[in-house]
């Protein structure tokens, strides 16, 4: 299972790449494997200010649908438009082409609460 060391994680199986006060968010390799083939990623919150743990989008697999949660409070700066036509990128390259949103965090202190790669590894056993 690929769990890159340079990323942070949440218990909702999202990964977070921190660059200053901007974070890039996607779902982990474990999460995409559990969901199976992904057919839509719907994110209609571009430009919105959302609280931590608020839903910023949904991800639909053939068999199931799952909400996507804000890992930190902030503004949704950018949405990965490639997922519109190629949702399978989330399955194929969850940590690269499958990224979902970039968020401008309101309070970088919130980053401390995110899980490290090691903590996430323990979480999924």
């Amino acid at each position: 299972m690929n769990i890159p060391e340079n990323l942070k994680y949440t218990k909702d199986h999202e990964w977070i790449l921190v660059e200053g006060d901007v974070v890039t968010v996607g779902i982990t390799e474990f999460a995409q494997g559990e969901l199976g083939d992904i057919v839509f990623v719907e994110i209609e919150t571009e430009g919105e200010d959302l609280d931590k743990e608020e839903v910023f989008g949904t991800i639909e697999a053939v068999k199931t649908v799952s909400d996507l949660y804000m890992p930190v409070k902030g503004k949704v700066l950018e949405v990965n438009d490639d997922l519109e036509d190629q949702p399978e990128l989330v399955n194929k390259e969850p940590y690269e082409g499958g990224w979902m949103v970039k968020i401008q965090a309101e309070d970088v202190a919130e980053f401390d609460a995110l899980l490290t790669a090691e903590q996430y590894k323990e979480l999924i056993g």
Partner: protein
Amino acid sequence: MKKTAFNSIHHSLNAKMVPFAGYEMPIEYTGINDEHMQVRNNVGVFDVSHMGEFWVKGPNAFEFIQRVTSNDVGKLSIGKAQYSCFPNGQGGIVDDLLVYKYEEEKYLLVVNASNIEKDWNWCIENNTMHAELENASDEISQLAIQGPKAIETLQKLTDINLSEIPYYSFVTGKIGGVNDVIISNTGYTGAGGFELYIYNKDATTLWESIFKAGAEYDIKPIGLAARDTLRLEMGFCLYGNDINDTTSPIEAGLGWITKFTDSNDFIDREALLSQKENGVTRRLRAFKMINRGIPRKDYEIVDNEDNVIGHVTSGTQSPVLKSGIGMGYVKTDQAKFGTEIFIKVRNRKLKAEIVKAPFI
């Protein structure tokens, strides 16, 4: 948790295993779309050993099956199979099943895994004519080999001419080094192919033979998830979703397996005949999404004025059509083919159209 005879094979193939009807079953191997298209285009193998098998034997076997199933067993000759259901005495359905006429006084009933115990009790309870019943579910394994290359794959393994077995017919014989296999031209995918019934002891031998024979078609194991999307593209009912104890076969569009012939005095005959003659208030319908979105079980079906006219019973993204498809009960007056309906997908109202199944 029960295990089928193929359990260690599934694990060795890294299948995603889930509890299903008391069994640990493979839901997915390489991915649902990949597995789905493998069956549509080539050939795939499903372990469906969790299905239940009841033998019905003796001089009263015919009378018993005629009574408990809705289809007309009198129409069944030796070597033929019939799709049918057990009406539940209250206008609903205990289960849907296949009835095989094996010998003059010997039939095989194949029922859903999740209903084995319920069906068995129902059969015992209604066996007032004392047919000989035997629950062989734990001794019999079943493989479904489905897809356009299924026949070529299996033909390499047997001297029986498989092309001479018509749809919904079967023969018993040797295949893949295993004797006395029931080779049935049936399936739940609409892709063509066979279902093979064998004793557990022969299960892995047959699996290995089939995979060797199918190598040139890139044969693959297929999980329960793709089994569901394949059947839904054909508009086949799934018990527990599209039919259950509260849905009648007439409402479900299963009038074609509900035969009101003079000799067929089955449970609920009068009530179902009245439904057939007087009509029903709701109908099971297939629908295709026009807006982008995936319908799922229990989502509301509404009209353009937001009135709830039904509920989704099955839904998915069709891997072939790459759009949402589903089935659900809708009020009869709004059930015409071509009717525009709406599916409440979470907070949104998405447009769909009632269509005739199959979807592809």
